[in-house]
C-alpha cells in the first residue's frame, strides 16, 4: 500500500532528487524556464526533470506554452531565461552529435511528398550512421523500422499518397530512425483511428522499455496520457501545476469519490468524502440487498479540469500556491 503526502507550498522548482540519487541519470533537467514575447509571459518559471526510460506527458490547455516548452528543449527556439539541460547539454548550444541523439515528431509535416517511404527513411537514416556507438547501432534498419510502424505495404509508395494516419506513422518512423535516446512527440495520435492509436501506444511502450528511450509527448487525449505516461505534467498559466503519475494526480485532487449501487431494482449515486466508511455503513444497513456496487475515484479528466481551473483563477494568488509537489511514501 502506498500513502500519499503532499505539501502545499513550494520551492521554485519541482525538480525532485532524492539524496544519493545520481544526477547523471537525468535526461531532462529544466529549472525556472521563462519565455517572454514582448510583454507577454508565456512561460513563467517551468521546472521539471525526466530520467532515462521515462515517458512524460505534457498536458495543458491551448496556449499554455506546451509547444514553446518542447521547442526550447528541441533546440529550435531560444529561451528568455532559466537553466535547461537536455541529455547533459544546453539545447541552445547543442551540436550535431547532440542532435543525433534526439528524435523529433512535430504536429504537421507535409515535406518530401515526391519521395517514396523507404527511400526517404533510408536517406534520413544515413545521416545518423557516424553517430553509432557500441551497443547502439544507428540508424535503425530500414525494413525493420517500416515493419515496426506497419508501413510494409506502403514502402514503395510516394509520401504524398499516404493517408493521414499512414503519414503520421511515417513521421514517427522518421523521428526514431536514428534510434534517439530522447524522443519528442507533439500530439502524435491526432487523426488516428482507434486501432492505429492502439498500435501506436504499443510502439511507444516498446521504445521506452526495449530501447530505454526517454519520451516526452504532448497530447489533448487524457486517456492516452494515462495509458502511456509514467508521469504527467500539467502546464497551465505558464507553469507546471502538477507533476506525478495519473494515479497520484487523481488521488491528490479527489477528496470525494462516487459510489453507485442498486437496491430492489433502483439505482443510487452518492458522492462520499470517505467512500470506505460509506460503503461499510451501506452494507451494515442493507446487507445483501445491495447490488452492482461501484466506487470510482475522480478520473484524470476531472483532476485535469480542476487543476487547470484552479491555475487559471488562482493566477493572482502568486505562483507558489498553485504549484505543489508531493511524494509517494511506500508504507
Amino acid at each position, binding site marked *: 500500500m502506498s500513502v500519499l503526502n503532499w505539501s502545499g507550498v513550494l520551492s521554485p522548482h519541482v525538480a525532485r532528487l532524492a539524496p544519493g540519487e545520481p544526477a547523471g541519470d537525468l535526461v531532462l533537467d529544466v529549472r525556472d524556464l521563462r519565455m517572454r514575447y514582448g510583454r507577454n509571459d508565456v512561460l513563467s518559471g517551468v521546472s521539471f526533470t525526466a530520467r532515462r526510460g521515462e515517458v512524460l506527458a505534457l498536458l495543458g490547455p491551448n496556449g499554455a506554452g506546451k509547444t514553446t516548452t518542447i*521547442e526550447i528543449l528541441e533546440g529550435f527556439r531560444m529561451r528568455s531565461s532559466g537553466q535547461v539541460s537536455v541529455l547533459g547539454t544546453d539545447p541552445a548550444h547543442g551540436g550535431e552529435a547532440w*542532435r543525433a541523439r534526439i528524435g523529433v515528431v512535430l504536429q*504537421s*509535416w507535409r515535406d518530401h*511528398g*515526391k519521395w517514396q517511404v523507404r527511400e526517404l527513411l533510408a536517406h*534520413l537514416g*544515413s545521416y545518423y550512421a*557516424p553517430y553509432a556507438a557500441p551497443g547502439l547501432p544507428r540508424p535503425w534498419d530500414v525494413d525493420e523500422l517500416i515493419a515496426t510502424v506497419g508501413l510494409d505495404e506502403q514502402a514503395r509508395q510516394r509520401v504524398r499518397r499516404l493517408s493521414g494516419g499512414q503519414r503520421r506513422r511515417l513521421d514517427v518512423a522518421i523521428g526514431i530512425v536514428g534510434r534517439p535516446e530522447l524522443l519528442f512527440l507533439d500530439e502524435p495520435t491526432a487523426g488516428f483511428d482507434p486501432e492505429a492509436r492502439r498500435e501506436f501506444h504499443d510502439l511507444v511502450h516498446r521504445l521506452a522499455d526495449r530501447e530505454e528511450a526517454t519520451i516526452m509527448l504532448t497530447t489533448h487525449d487524457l486517456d492516452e496520457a494515462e495509458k502511456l505516461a509514467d508521469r504527467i505534467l500539467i502546464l497551465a498559466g505558464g507553469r507546471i501545476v502538477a507533476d506525478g503519475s495519473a494515479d497520484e494526480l487523481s488521488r491528490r485532487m479527489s477528496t470525494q469519490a462516487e459510489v453507485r449501487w442498486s437496491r430492489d431494482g433502483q439505482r443510487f449515486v452518492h458522492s462520499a468524502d470517505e467512500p470506505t466508511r460509506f460503503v461499510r455503513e451501506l452494507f451494515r444497513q442493507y446487507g445483501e440487498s445491495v447490488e452492482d456496487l461501484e466506487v470510482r475515484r475522480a478520473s484524470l479528466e476531472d483532476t485535469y479540469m480542476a487543476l487547470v481551473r484552479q491555475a487559471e483563477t488562482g493566477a493572482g494568488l502568486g505562483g507558489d500556491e498553485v504549484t505543489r509537489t508531493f511524494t509517494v511514501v511506500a508504507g
Partner: protein
Amino acid sequence: MNAGWVAIRAGGRRGWIELRHTFTTPSDLVTLVVWTAILLTVMLWMRTTTVPGTHFSLGTAMLASMIGMTVAFNGLATLGGILTVEREDGTLLRAKATPNGMTGYLIGKVITVSGTIAIGVAATLITGAFLFSGLAVGSAATWLTLIPVLLIGLLATLPIGAVLGSLFPSARSAGLLTLAIGGLAAISGIFYPITHLPHWLQWIGQAFPMYWLGLGTRSALLPANLASVEIGHSWRHLATFGVLTAWAVAGLLVAPLLLRWVARRESGSSVAARREKVLRQVAG
C-alpha cells in the same frame, strides 16, 4: 567515418534522387517540356527574321541567348522558389532536425537545380542544332567558352537564388520573384539586341547576371561578326567573367549568413503558423 563527409555524400544522393523525381513526376516533366516547346516555337517563328544590321537569323541568336537565360532563370527563380516552398512545408525544418541535415539539404538542392539546368541546356542545344542553322556546336572553341560560362553562371546565380529564397516570406510572394526575373529577361538582351534599348535600361540590364550569361552563351555559339550588335561591338569576355565572378563572390558571402539566419528561425510553430496563414488566404 567523418560525419561531415557522410552528410556531403548524403547530399549528393539527395540531389540525384530529387533529380530523378523531377523526371518521373508527370506534372514536373510536362512543365519542363511545355516551357521548352513554347520557347522553341517562338524561336522557330523568328527563324527567317534577321538580327538587325546582319543577315543572321534572329531565331538562332535567341536560342544562343536562351541557354544563358536558362541558367540565370533556374539559378535565381527555381532555387529561390524551392527554398520558400520547402520552408513552408517543413522540409527545411526536417533538415534542421537531422544531424548535419542542412549541409546535405543544400548540397542536394544545388545538385538538383544544376542537374535540371544541365538537362534543360542539353535539350535546347540538341533540338536547336537540328532545327537551326548557324549554331557553332561542332567546334572545340565553342565548348571551351560555353562550359566555363555555364559554370561561373551557376556560381553567380545559385547563391543569389538562395538569398532571394530566404528573403521572400511565403511561396506566394515568391511568385513575384518569377515575374521580376521574367521582366529582367526582357531588358537583358535575351530576345533582342540590348543596343536597341534606351541607355538607362541598358545600364540596369548590365547590372544583373542574366545579361552577362546571355552575352557569354551568344559569344560561344554565334559567329564572331555578330559581336557587332553588342555593346561596344565586342563579346567583352573579360567583363563577363568579372561581373559574374563579382556576383558569385557577393552571393557566396551573403547566402550562408542568410541561410543560417533562416534555419535558426525555423520551428514547428513557425511552419504551422505559415500553413495556417496560407489556408486563411485560400479560404478568405
